[in-house]
Every structure is written in structure tokens, then in C-alpha cells.
């Protein structure tokens, strides 16, 4: 318990990924298996079934501290987290002895047993723990009582730490952490076993990536040598269909099967021993939907029925990497496409489809199709050589992406703060605003896009035109206008502007413009309406 508590606080008090990785790796290496299993379970973001509701905990806290119930609520709102609120209000009364029990034992005896208790016993146990545990452990206790840990480590980072501790490929660990498992000794031991044949079969192929087409398409030669498809605005995923299972791997090599249960269901109808590459898109009424619809489905452990109904998805397959358990990546593109078409033909499920070819007589005709891409809610065109093999990584000449011109907005620099790493001493982290009446409303942050000399010149300007400071952030005079480019814009309740930009970056420093030449919020909203509507 104490060791895990120290790990937790170590992770909580650093923002450096490498430090977090090292802390977890060292812990996993020699922790007893029964504790390790729980640590993996909790760090990977799994949670105990809710034991006691937050409202009841606040009632008990009011009774224990003698503070009025409304003041408990206000304090929790100010602190932002119930587990921490309890810890802060109780830490004067704790006796402060660390709990000597092992993590698994402590979870059993301190938390899981609450499940079978009546309310009076629950209250007694919980309040006794609040009084007995030192603040660090009390916080951990409350976190587990109220939900997950959320300590700023991703599932991928936990997998990397385990991969280093076990000396196994991360994708093998990732496979072992998906699906149902119990945090027990046997499970943790199993993580250290060598990879089996089946496990190797469950790993994704390295994704083959396209190069952006920057020169004229005519330089590619005869249009007939190429297969052209839409570039879908979704998330790339490999679909592995095995005899008894389906696995979806994202391009970041994360297993995302659980986020898309309907695709798993659909893929069962495909022949076993198939691996496809394609794009998961939001899909409704026979049409791809804006990316933000898909976003609602991402980053979840489980997807509820309502969300499945509100944000349905489809899988648009564009390549076949494995057929009948055989790796076919070396076959030419056209052959793989034929095999893919045949595979998709075997299913009647409408959630699985073949990415259609975009036909054109010449490059010019393709260019005009590309220009209409945004209306079709795609990002542009994919141009693949008919004879290309499915390679590894980004290799020039086989696959090209021909994107549509980005959207742009002219916005005013309003805040700046120092960057990280090499640029920690320069103001490189900018916030831009657009006009709403005579007020500048923050629209987006953007980092990249300026060259080094521009960055230095802007840094110098920022230092001499600061109006106010809040910690590291400087509010500057609204004078500098920048053209920002971005790939999409969508409604967002989290932003004051009501809008969120996708992949914003600085396209140009518009020194020719004054701040009042910048765009308005209404203009930005029109862009969003133009896409979503």
C-alpha cells in the first residue's frame, strides 16, 4: 500500500513522461504479483464498481467535520474534486500512521468489503479510514472510493512501462490488457510470459503512411497508373478478424475494439484470418458525418447504448494486409484491392464498406473533384500506385495524399507563454482571439508555423508590449495579426468562443494587417456552419 501510494504521488507530481515511465517500470519490475495486478488495473484507468455515492460521502463528511452540508458542497466545487476535498478537510485529524498492509490486501479489506456492509458499518469504516490514514493515503483511498485514479498516465504509457519491465513488445502487452481480466496474481504473472503464436497473430502490421503531395499532380505521370480514393476524415484502424475474436488497432497502436462494439459485431461476418486497413468514420443516412461526431466516441472505456444510437460509425476499408491467414502486403495495390473487394462482398453488413475509387480522365478533373472534397466531408484524395506494395512507415512514391486547402482565419495575438524544452526561454505558445463587438474572444492556441527568426522577433515584441501577467502568461497589446490555418472547425461548449479548431497552426504573420482587420467570431462561426451544416 505504501509503495503504491508513493508511486501514485511520484506520478502525480511530475509532468515528464520519461520520469513517469521510469517510476512505473521500476515499480512493475519487482512488485509482488498480487499488488502488481491491482496497480496495472488502477493505472490503466479501470475502476472499482462504485461503492458509495458522492452525496452520501458528503453527508458523512459534514457530520464528521461539523461543517454545514452546503459549505461542504461549496468547498468541493472550489477544490474541484471530492476525493481531495475529503482529504483536505480531514487532514488535521489523522493520526498519520501509514497503513502497513499490502496493496491487494488493503483493497480487499478496506474497499471491496464495503460492498457487503450495511450503511452504518460502511459509514463507520469509511470515517475510521479518513481519521487513520495519512493524507497521501487518504487521498488514494478517496479516489478509489469515488472512481478512478486519473493520474495523468495513458494506457499506452502503462503498456510501455510493462513492456520495459517484461522485455516484451508493447503490442503484446496491449493485447493482454484488453478484454476481461481479473487483477489477480495469475494475471500479473501471465504478463511476464513469452508471447504465444496467437498473440503474435494478434499484433497489427506497421501502418503504411502516405506522403503529402506538394508538387503538381501532373508530375506523377499517367493518371491510369494510379488508384485514387477519397481521404476519409476519421481515424485510421487495422481490423484483425480471427476465428474467435476481432481486434481493432488504432494508428497509435492502441486496441480500440471496446470503443466500437458495432464494428466488432459486423466484422464477425468476415472470413477468419483477415486483416484490413481502413478508416473508422461517423456515419449516418448513407453519409459520412463531421469528425466531431466521431470524437464523441473516442477515448472511452465503454460506450453506452445512447451514444451508439446518437453517433453511429462505419468502417471504410481500403486495403487488405492478410487474407486466409497469409500476409499479402507484398502483392501489388490493384491485387490487394481486388481481394479486398471480394472480402467485403462476403458480408451484407452495411457498416463495413469498400472505399470507392474516384474516377477521372486526367489530373485536372481530379483537381476539381478535390476542390469539392470539403462538401463531401472528406479531407482530399489518396493517390496510390497500382503496383505499390503495402510498405512500412512513410515511403515516398507509393502513396500520396492530396489534401484540400486548409481553412483560414485572421486572428489577433492576445496571450503568450513560454514554450517547452529548447524553447523554454522564448514566448512560443500563443493564444489568438477574434472580434466579438469590441472584445477579443480567445479562439485557439497555436504553436508551430513561424521560423526561428520570426519567433525571436515576436518574442522581443511580446516582452515590450505586455499589458498584464498571470504567472507565466502575458496578455499583450492586441496589435499582431496572424493567418491561422486549420483542418476543421466545430462547435464546442468547452471554449468561450463556442468553437474548437482542428490542427490549428500559424500560416503567416500578417504584418500588413492591423488588429481591426482581423476576423470576427461571427465569421468563424460561419465557417463552422459551412462544414457541419
Amino acid at each position, binding site marked *: 500500500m505504501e509503495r503504491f501510494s508513493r508511486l501514485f504521488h511520484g506520478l*502525480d*507530481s*511530475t*509532468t515528464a513522461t520519461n520520469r513517469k515511465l521510469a517510476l512505473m517500470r521500476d515499480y512493475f519490475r519487482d512488485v509482488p504479483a498480487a499488488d502488481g495486478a491491482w496497480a496495472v488495473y488502477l493505472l490503466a484507468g479501470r475502476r472499482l464498481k462504485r461503492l458509495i455515492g458522492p452525496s452520501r460521502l458528503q453527508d458523512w463528511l459534514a457530520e464528521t*467535520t461539523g*461543517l*454545514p452540508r*452546503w*459549505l461542504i458542497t*461549496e*468547498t468541493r466545487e*472550489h*477544490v*474541484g*474534486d471530492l476525493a*481531495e*476535498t475529503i482529504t*483536505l*478537510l480531514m*487532514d*488535521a485529524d489523522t493520526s498519520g500512521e501509514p497503513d502497513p498492509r499490502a496493496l491487494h490486501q488493503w483493497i480487499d479489506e478496506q474497499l471491496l468489503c464495503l460492498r457487503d456492509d450495511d450503511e452504518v458499518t460502511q459509514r463507520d469504516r469509511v470515517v475510521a479510514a479518513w481519521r487513520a490514514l495519512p493524507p497521501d493515503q487518504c487521498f488514494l483511498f478517496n479516489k478509489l472510493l469515488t472512481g478512478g485514479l486519473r493520474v*495523468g498516465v495513458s494506457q499506452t504509457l502503462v503498456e510501455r512501462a510493462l513492456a520495459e519491465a517484461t522485455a516484451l513488445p508493447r503490442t503484446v502487452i496491449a493485447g493482454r490488457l484488453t478484454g476481461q481480466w481479473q487483477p489477480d496474481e495469475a494475471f500479473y504473472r501471465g504478463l511476464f510470459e513469452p508471447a504465444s503464436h496467437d498473440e503474435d497473430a494478434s499484433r497489427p502490421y506497421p501502418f503504411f503512411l502516405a506522403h503529402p503531395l506538394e508538387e503538381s499532380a501532373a508530375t506523377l505521370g499517367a493518371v491510369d497508373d494510379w488508384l485514387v480514393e477519397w481521404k476519409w476524415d476519421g481515424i485510421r484502424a487495422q481490423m484483425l478478424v480471427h476465428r474467435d475474436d476481432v481486434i481493432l488497432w488504432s494508428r497509435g497502436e492502441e486496441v480500440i475494439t471496446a470503443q466500437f462494439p458495432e464494428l466488432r459485431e459486423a466484422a464477425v461476418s468476415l472470413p477468419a484470418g483477415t486483416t484490413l486497413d481502413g478508416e473508422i468514420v461517423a456515419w449516418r443516412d448513407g453519409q459520412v458525418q463531421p469528425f466531431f461526431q466521431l470524437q464523441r466516441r473516442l477515448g472511452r472505456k465503454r460506450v453506452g447504448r445512447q451514444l451508439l444510437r446518437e453517433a453511429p460509425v462505419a468502417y471504410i476499408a481500403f486495403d487488405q494486409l492478410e487474407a486466409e491467414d497469409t500476409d499479402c502486403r507484398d502483392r501489388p495495390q490493384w491485387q490487394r484491392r481486388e481481394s479486398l473487394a471480394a472480402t467485403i462482398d462476403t458480408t451484407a453488413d452495411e457498416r463495413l464498406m469498400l472505399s470507392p475509387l474516384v474516377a477521372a480522365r486526367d489530373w485536372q478533373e481530379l483537381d476539381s473533384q478535390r476542390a469539392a472534397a470539403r462538401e463531401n466531408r472528406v479531407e482530399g484524395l489518396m493517390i496510390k500506385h497500382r503496383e505499390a506494395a503495402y510498405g512500412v512507415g512513410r515511403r515516398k512514391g507509393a502513396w500520396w495524399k492530396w489534401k484540400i486547402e486548409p481553412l483560414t482565419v485572421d486572428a489577433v495575438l492576445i496571450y503568450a*507563454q*513560454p514554450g517547452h524544452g529548447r524553447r*523554454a*526561454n522564448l514566448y512560443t505558445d500563443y493564444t489568438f482571439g477574434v472580434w466579438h463587438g469590441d472584445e477579443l474572444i480567445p479562439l485557439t492556441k497555436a504553436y508551430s508555423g513561424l521560423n526561428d527568426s520570426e519567433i525571436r522577433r515576436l518574442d522581443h515584441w511580446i516582452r515590450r508590449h505586455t499589458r498584464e*501577467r498571470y*504567472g*507565466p502568461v502575458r496578455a499583450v497589446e492586441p496589435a499582431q495579426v496572424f493567418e491561422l490555418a486549420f483542418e476543421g472547425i466545430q462547435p464546442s461548449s468547452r471554449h468561450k468562443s463556442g468553437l474548437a479548431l482542428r490542427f490549428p497552426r500559424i500560416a503567416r504573420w500578417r504584418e500588413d494587417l492591423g488588429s481591426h482587420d482581423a476576423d470576427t467570431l461571427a465569421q468563424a462561426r460561419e465557417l463552422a456552419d459551412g462544414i457541419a451544416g
Partner: protein
Amino acid sequence: MGQDLIEPTEHGLYCAAGDFYIDPWRPVERAVVTHAHADHARPGSHRYYAAPSSIPLLKKRLGADTRIEPLHWQHRYRFGDCEVSLHPAGHILGSAQVRVGDGHRVWVASGDFKRGDDPSCEPFEVVPCDTFISEATFALPAYRWPAPGDTAQAIHDWWQTNAAEGRASVLFTYALGKAQRILAALRWLTPDTVYLHGAAVPLTRIYRQAGIAMAPTAPVSERDSSDGFAGELVIAPPSAHGSQWMRRFRRPSTAFASGWMRIRGNRRRRGFDRGFVLSDHADWPDLLRTFAETGAQRILTTHGRADELVAYLREQGYRASPLATAYSETGEAD
């Protein structure tokens, strides 16, 4: 009793019976100033009154030729129909509570105050009164300070850990008050020199001239920086975080000392490696204790989280209400 003895006006808290202001935010004829923080000591008034130990700090802030009359601790001075006296507030060197009596009633305006140990300033004095004007910067029960000695020890341990790794330790904190409080506490823990950002140098000198014993200090600018200040402790104002000035330190570990560091979310958002809980304002238990000890029936609150405090005090049987003032909401002025 009729009219209140002290009332907020557009210039600041005003005592009509004595014809003077307390910590006015606009220029006035006569200003009694509780302490030298920027949101309480504003320039432009004709004549100032303050505790003797506050005067050098005020002159540093307001200009050397500012007219400032000393009001000696506990001594009663006549202002119009009132008697006015100053009593230590324990906030920073020379910080005062202003006691005002008109023969019928006694009001105390406390400015900023705290009750915790602080070897760098005069300790808080409980002044019995009918009405107490209190700050409410940290007026929620989650704000309860650890023993200042423990925090000083934690700062020292952090410094030693970094030193063992050959790193510099840069501690951000307010240049007036908190910096000297930390230096005074470190004196018991180390004989080593602590390096100061330029903003803290003259203020620390004034503290020394007032006889406050502190750890030895030297300006950052006077030390050779070729080793990146490996192993050294540096104290700097928060505004230096992320500035060019930080370039001289190699792989510095950064920390922030403030009452706001009590909340995990604040520690994480601020982007410092460590947060130390150390405040020059009263925490929740000390606010309540102070109200009880003064015997005041009526509590008026100035800056901070007035709503919850006022509602709570009313439930406890006090007459309580917030006063509109222009002091810093965050207690972060320096």
C-alpha cells in the same frame, strides 16, 4: 449607533468621524496604510500614516520623498473625533491592524493578517472590538495551513535533493514578505547562502536593517553562473518564471510557495515541479478563531471568498456582510 464608523467610498475605506482613509485605492488627503503590498499602499495621497517598521518598505514603493508619519504600536492618536492606534497584523514586516474608537464603539480594520509563526515580522495582536473588518482571501475550510516549520523543512529537503543531483533549485514566491519569511526560517536549517532575484534584493536589505535575522543572501547577478547554479537555492518572484532570466540555471527544479498550492489542481496547472503550502494570510480556522477572540459581534469582509464566509458567520450568529473593496482577490500582490 447610526452611521458606520468606517464605510467604503469610491476612494477607499473612509472614517468620516476622523476624516481619514484606510488603504485608499485613489489619492486622498490622509491615508492610514496597513502594509506595503501594492494593493494596499497606492501612490498619490497627500499624507500617509503607518507603523514605523513599515515606513522604509513604503518609501521603497511610494518614493523616498513621500510624507509618511509614524504611528507607534499601540499608541493612541487623535484623528478628529476618534482615537486611532496600530496593532501588529502578523502579515509582513510592519503590517498593522487599524483600531478606531469614537468613545461609543471600537472598530478594527485588519488589512491582511495571519496567525502562524513568522520570525520576520511582529506577531498578530488580538484587539478586542465591536466590528472587525477581515480579509477573506482563503476563507474556505479546505484552506488549513501546515505548520510553517514543516514547510520550511520541506523546502530545505527539496533543495538538498536537487543539490545532490547537481541541479539548481528556483523557488518562486512574493518578493515582499514571503521571501524574507522563508529566509528567516532557513537560517535555522542551513548556514549556506541563498541567491536572490533582483526584485527581492532591496526588500531583503530593508528587513536586515530592521534587525530581522535571515539566512545569508547574495544577488544572483553577483554570482558566476558558469556552473548553472548547481546545488544553489534561488528565490525569485513568480513573474520570473519562464523569462530570459531563467536561462542562467541549468536543469533547474522549480517550486512555488503559496497558500494556493494547498489545492492539487493549482499545483498541476501552474507548471512548477513542486508546490509548497505557505501563506501570509489567515487560513479558515484562524479566521474563525480570530473573530471569536476579538469578541466582535459584527464581521465585515474585504478581498477574497466573502460569500461563503459571510453565510457561515451568519449561521453562527454573527452580523456579517461583505464590503466592496479594490484589493487583490488572490492575495498575490507584491
